Each structure stands twice: as structure tokens, then as C-alpha cells.
């Protein structure tokens, strides 16, 4: 299938929203650059996953993981890590799917911005899912994939925090942290707020604070290169600093 890339300045275009709503992008060569990718058939997947309902959340994430793994993971990162590519895909190739799943994007410009042309970084659900699938495929045997995906979904706050910063946005480190949290049943504790430490600022959570401890010691202690058992005792030690 052919994905034509939008012009580099597409986000600055004044009529992007209107043209999207009126289905005028595809026919207007002014919107497009000269670049295009010819790719195997790609299926759309849940790409905006801000669900409050836990079951819905898990179901949608799992579906996204599955399709990404089947259709997208083999594609060069030059394409899959490009915001221009994903926005082109959503605005043109997957327009119908996007509107069907999120009808509000044609009526509310803010929803459009927030859902369709969301910037492609750690807050973007496609980005989150893509990294998770890539990390599983690159590092874990097939049988452990679902376990890892569950760990991501169970510890979303921690996962978000891990992929937010370059120092922790590393496949092996993230996999180890999530494994340790799961096997020590720390999920609930990690996402809960630290109440008795006003000096740390508001909304500090155990999980984030523990990761910050790893961050502070890096690269004096090269924790991402540790094996999981060494890392486990270090993590528990960091956690003990905050548990009174």
C-alpha cells in the first residue's frame, strides 16, 4: 500500500483541520510532499487509548500490540519513528477508521489536535505501543510477550515515566524494571503517592522516585547493563529510602 507523506509544514497549514473534516486532503496535491512509501498492506489499530475502564484499556492495548507486531514491526524505523508518517497515515489512509472510532475529531478542533495530530513522543499511544512491541520482540521469547504486555498495561504510570527520559528509555532496563515490579507485587505501591515527604513536591510516586534514584546514579552505576538479580536488590534498596 502507498503512503504519501504530507508536506513537512503540514502542521502549520491553516486549513488542515477543515480539509480533513471535508475529506479534501487526499485530492489536494498542495498538502503532499514528493515522498511516498510503498509498504505491505497495513491495518489500522487503536491509536488513542485514554480509557478509564480497565478492561477496555487492556483490550485496546492488546489489540494495538497484536496488529503492530503483525503489520508494522518489520518496517524500518526511519518510517515507523516518523511523526510525519503516522500523521499522514491517520489523516489520509486511515481517515475513515479515525472518524469512526473518534467521531468528535471532526467537530472539535481540540479533540482533533489531541487525538489525530498528537505529537509523536512518549505521550503518544502509538509511540508507547510501538516501543513495547519492539522491546518484546527484540528481547523476549515469544511465550513471554503477553506477560510483558500485561506488565506494561499494569504499570502504565511507571512505563510512561520510563520512556519519558532518554536515560531510562532503554529496552533491557525497562524489561528488567517491569519484571522486578511484577515478581515482587509492587505494582500498586509503585503507582501510589508518597504522602509523608512534603519535601519531594506534590504528586511524587514511589515508582517515579525509585527510577529517579537510578537516574541520579547513572552512569556511575551502569544499572541498565546489570543482570536482573543485581538490579532487583538495587531497586528494593532505592525503594526502602522512601518507605518509612
Amino acid at each position, binding site marked *: 500500500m502507498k503512503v504519501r507523506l504530507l508536506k513537512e509544514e503540514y502542521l502549520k497549514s491553516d486549513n488542515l483541520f477543515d480539509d480533513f473534516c471535508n475529506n479534501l486532503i487526499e485530492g489536494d496535491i498542495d498538502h503532499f510532499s514528493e515522498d511516498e512509501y510503498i509498504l505491505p498492506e497495513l491495518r489500522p489499530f487503536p491509536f488513542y487509548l485514554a480509557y478509564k475502564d480497565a478492561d477496555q484499556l487492556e483490550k485496546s492495548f492488546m489489540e494495538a500490540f497484536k496488529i503492530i507486531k503483525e503489520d508494522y514491526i518489520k518496517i524500518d524505523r526511519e518510517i515507523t519513528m516518523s511523526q510525519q508518517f503516522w500523521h499522514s497515515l491517520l489523516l489520509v489512509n486511515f481517515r475513515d477508521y479515525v472518524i469512526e472510532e473518534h467521531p468528535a475529531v471532526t467537530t472539535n478542533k481540540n479533540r482533533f489536535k489531541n487525538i489525530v495530530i498528537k505529537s509523536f513522543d512518549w505521550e503518544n499511544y502509538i509511540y508507547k505501543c510501538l516501543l513495547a512491541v519492539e522491546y518484546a520482540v527484540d528481547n523476549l521469547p515469544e511465550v513471554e510477550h503477553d506477560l510483558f504486555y500485561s506488565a506494561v498495561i499494569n504499570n502504565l504510570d511507571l512505563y510512561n515515566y520510563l520512556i519519558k527520559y*532518554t*536515560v531510562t528509555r532503554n529496552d533491557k532496563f525497562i524489561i528488567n524494571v517491569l519484571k522486578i515490579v511484577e515478581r515482587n507485587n509492587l505494582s500498586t505501591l509503585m503507582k501510589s503517592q508518597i504522602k509523608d515527604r512534603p519535601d519531594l513536591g506534590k504528586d511524587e510516586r514511589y515508582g517515579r522516585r525509585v527510577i*529517579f534514584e*537510578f*537516574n*541520579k*546514579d*547513572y552512569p*556511575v552505576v551502569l544499572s541498565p547493563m546489570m543482570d536482573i538479580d543485581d538490579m532487583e536488590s538495587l531497586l528494593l534498596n532505592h525503594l526502602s*529510602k522512601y518507605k518509612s
Partner: protein
Amino acid sequence: MGVWKFSETKLMEDYNFNPILERFYTYGISGLVRENIQNSLDHRLDKRKPVEVVIELGKLNGNDIPGFDEIKNRIKALMGTNQYSKETIDNMKAHLNDRSYDFISFEDKNTKGLSGSNFGYSVSGKYSYSAYAYSKGIHFEDSDKVNEKLRGGSHGIGKIASNAASILYTMFFANCDEYSNETLGGTIQLIDHQLDGKTYRSTGYYTDEISDKYIPYKNEEYHRVFHKSTRGLKIIVPFLRESFVNKDMIIQSICDSFMLAIINEDLVVHFNDITINALTFEDILDENNIFPETDNGKTDVFTKLYFRTYQNLHSDNFIISDKHQDYRFKLYFTYDESILTGRTGIYRSIGMKIEDKKIVSNVNKPYNALLIPYSVEEDVFLKSLENESHTKLDFSHFKDKENQENAKRFINNIDREISKVIESEMNKHNPPEGKLDTSDIIYDIENTFKRDIEKRFVELHIGAGNTKKTILKTSDTEEEGESTKRKKRKGKNKPNKLVKIKKDFGNEPKEYYQIPGSLIKRYSVTDKENLFINVDLNDIYEDKKTGNLLVTIVDGMGIEYPNEYNLENTYEYIADENTRTKLRFNKNCIYLINFEKGNIHLSMKVKNHSNKFSKLRFYLEV
């Protein structure tokens, strides 16, 4: 008979110094450098390897200079008859008893050297040694046939350039030929003179004479400066004129005259401890004392511009004709409105620049160009047009009228052809009104930015066809990167000065001195942490005896947290090792450290090891 040989004559004929001496003197040190390096390039041995020229500028004692006593006697005997020769002779006499003398020497390697030295003087013309050693060094002027020059080897003229650079018009040449015959010769250019009742000619030769035949001295037991033990020639100019002793000017003229030879790896020059080769060339161009920048950008040294222009080939089939035929050249061309003086560098294919040619009615046009012969044929022709000092294309030295006119035509055609290019480039950049394309015109000022930014970038080309892409690489180390810095700068790039910087430690932003990591030493032994800051505080704080040190922590991405490192929770005490006293401290500040020793040396007793792996930054209160 002395060590210097002067021919006897019946009459005093030459009351004047050879006029070429005076002319070469006005070309200064750069003329001397040009002559000698050019001769070396012309006598290259292995074409696959560069010619090496070793230049040494130094001092010699009078008694280390061969035959100096005799030189003194001859000079004392000189009688000036006109104002000019009187002045010259007086100046020579004034320098006969200097404590020491400047000299410069040019030693070449990977060159042929002179042949046939063991045969001494010979009329056959078969050996270059005889032609070089026993002529006045004005071979060029003596010849009246243009063709003779085309045979190449106008080696003689360089010699008189060397005489001219010497207060006593004296030069030596140490030769080592392919059979390792090491000899030393020399010439002195005086005027006809009488000594001990005999009359002598002006030119003296430093040579032995065996059964009425000149044979060179073996090069033994002379001062080190006069030795030449590898194949090639070494020119030594003693009694070097003061105005010629100018290191920066020497480097400048090497770079300016031989840029192409150097960057094309045909020439390497060692001057005292500096090596000028393809790798160091650009760095040398950047040295302000050698290539000074002027305020208005006007200059009469165009090396930097030529270097830049040499990246832009305009045509490798640029035709300039004389009356009979076409000659093919390579033309490199830059049009840039920030250029204030327009010049065309005319080069020989050995990589030497002949002149910064002014193109008629284009001398102030904003361009720069290089004109280089395409093959030997053009090169030989160009060489025939050089004036005697190789500094200009000229026609007046042709005696034959036909040849003179032809040369004139060719030189005029250079002007004409280059003018055309300048004009068409100017039109391109200044299109006539009505046709102006005003979108996206990039300023020529970009050239400056480009050059600067390029220094940080290395282009990596990957892939081919559709997937071809160019990636720019920057390296944060000065030592490597792709731009080779000279060795002596190695390791000097670590910051070692305090930087004044505004910081907010919780109250409001204030100025502090940030201490660079390279000045700080920190280590722990069991529960004792040591901190040593090697900075001369007396330089910074004139009369302040104590000061406060602030500490911040840096995370794994380099982000700094001014209030995250808690000294109180970490240390039991902090002691000033210079005064052996314990210091007061709070969360992030250590108070009243004593500065009297100039540095800071603290030891800390650790009570809580949870901050054991922290990376810190240190600030001094201003």
C-alpha cells in the same frame, strides 16, 4: 691562494654591484623563500612522494662561517665610487665584527641534487654542478633565446636571490649527489677591487683549485649548519639581513606561494619546529598572527580566499589562446560580494603561484579565481612568460619581437577571458531589473557561516540511488574529529577557568563561579570522602580570605538539581584540610572555607551512603 677564488683582471671595470642584487633585495624574505622552494620542486626525484624542504632560521658565530677572514679582507678593500655603492660598502663594513649573524638555510629532500660535482668546473654543460657553482647566478639574463628557458632548469637565478638576502652578498650551497659526494660551495657578489697590488673581478667562488681547475671542497668538518648528508641541495645564507628575519612572514609566504603544492601533497615544509603539510595547512591559515584579519576585510594576501576558491571548479577546459594555438587551463572561481579585492591567482603546475593577477578593470570586483595549467604543455608556456623573479607574467624579457607580441597577446587574452567569467557571474547574481527572483535567495554571507559550520561537520554518505543520504557528523572532541589539529594543541581543550554564571539556589538568581570538573579531584576511602579543588583563588578573590561553596547534583542526563543533594543528611562532618578545622554546612552550602592556601581541600565523614554514587557540581560564591 685563499679559500675564495676571484679571477684576476687587468682593469677595474665593474664599479657597481650587480643590479639584480638590489632588485631581489626588494622582493624581501618572500622572494627568497619562493626562489629556493621552487628550485627544490623543479628537481623532484620520486614523483610519488612529496618534496621535503627543511628551513632553519638561526644564528651563527663569525668563525663558524667558512672563509670569513678572507671575506673581511676583500670587503675592507672595496672602494665605492658612487653614492649607492658607497652606502652598500659602508653597510658591509659596519657588520664585519658582529657578535653573531642570522642565517637561513633551505635543505631539500627527495630531490636530485646537482650532478658531476667531482668533475668540478667543466665547459661541456653536461653537469649541473658546474653550471650552478661557477656562474654568477645570472644565467637567465645572459641568455637571449627564449627557447633556452624552455629546457627548464633556470637554477642559477635562485642563487643570486640568496646572495641578495645576505648583508655581505654571500651564499653557500651544500650538495650531496646520488653517489653521496658531499661538497660545499659558495659565491660572493662584490665589485672589482684591488688587493695586495692585484686587481680582481667582482665574483668570488668558494672552491678548491687543483692544477688550475676548480674542484669543490669536500664537505668535512664544517659547522653543522653547512652539512648536507642526504641526496639533494642545501642553501645556506649567512649574514641574513635583519628585515628578512621574520618567522610569520616566512610561513605566510610558504603558504601563499605554494598552497597548491602543499595541499596536493607535492610539498612538505618543515620550518624550525613547524610542519606545513596538507593536514596542517588549514589550521595555519587560521592563525591570526600569520594571516591577520583586517577590519575592513581588505588585504593583499589572498591565500585564504584561494583556499576557499579551490573547492569550486568552474571549468577544467578553460581556453586561453595566443596567436598560434589554444592553451587549456583549469579555472576555479568564487563570486562573493564580501570580497573587496578581486584577484586571479596564476599557478604553475608544480603548485607554485606566479602572481595575484589583476584583471584589467576588474581589480575591485567581488570575485576570486585560480588559473592552473591543464598539462605540461601549458605549464612550459606559462613558465616562459615568467619574469626573472618568477613573480609576474610578462613579455618584456622576450628579445624577439614576434615572441614579444605573442606573449602580449596571450596575457591580454587572460584578462579578456576571465573578465567574461566575472561579468557573467555578476549578471547571475545581479539579474537585470524585472527578472529578479527574490524568493529564497541565500545570502552570500552564508559562505562565512558555511565555512564555520563545516568545521564541526563531517559528511557521511550512505546508500545509493533512492536511499542515498547524507548525514552530518559532529564530534565533541577537538582532538580527533576530522579536522586535524596540530599536536601541540592536544589536551589543551579542557576548560580550566572559572565561569561566572547566574544560578538560583532557592532564593533568587545570583552570580556564582562554576568550577570546571577538570579542576576537581574527588574520591572516597571507606567512609571518608576527599575533595580537592585546584584553582588559584588568590587570583580571583584579592583580599577575601574565606568563601562559601555550593553543591548541586547532576542526574544521568546531565540535568542539575540545586536542592536535591542534602549535605546534612549525607555527612557527619566536613573538615577544611588546609586549616584543620571543621566547617559549618547546611543542605547545599559549605561555609567559610579558608582560601589562604589558594586551593580548596576538604575531607568529609560520610554517615549516610545513599548518595555515594552522586555526580556533583561545585560553585563558589562571588
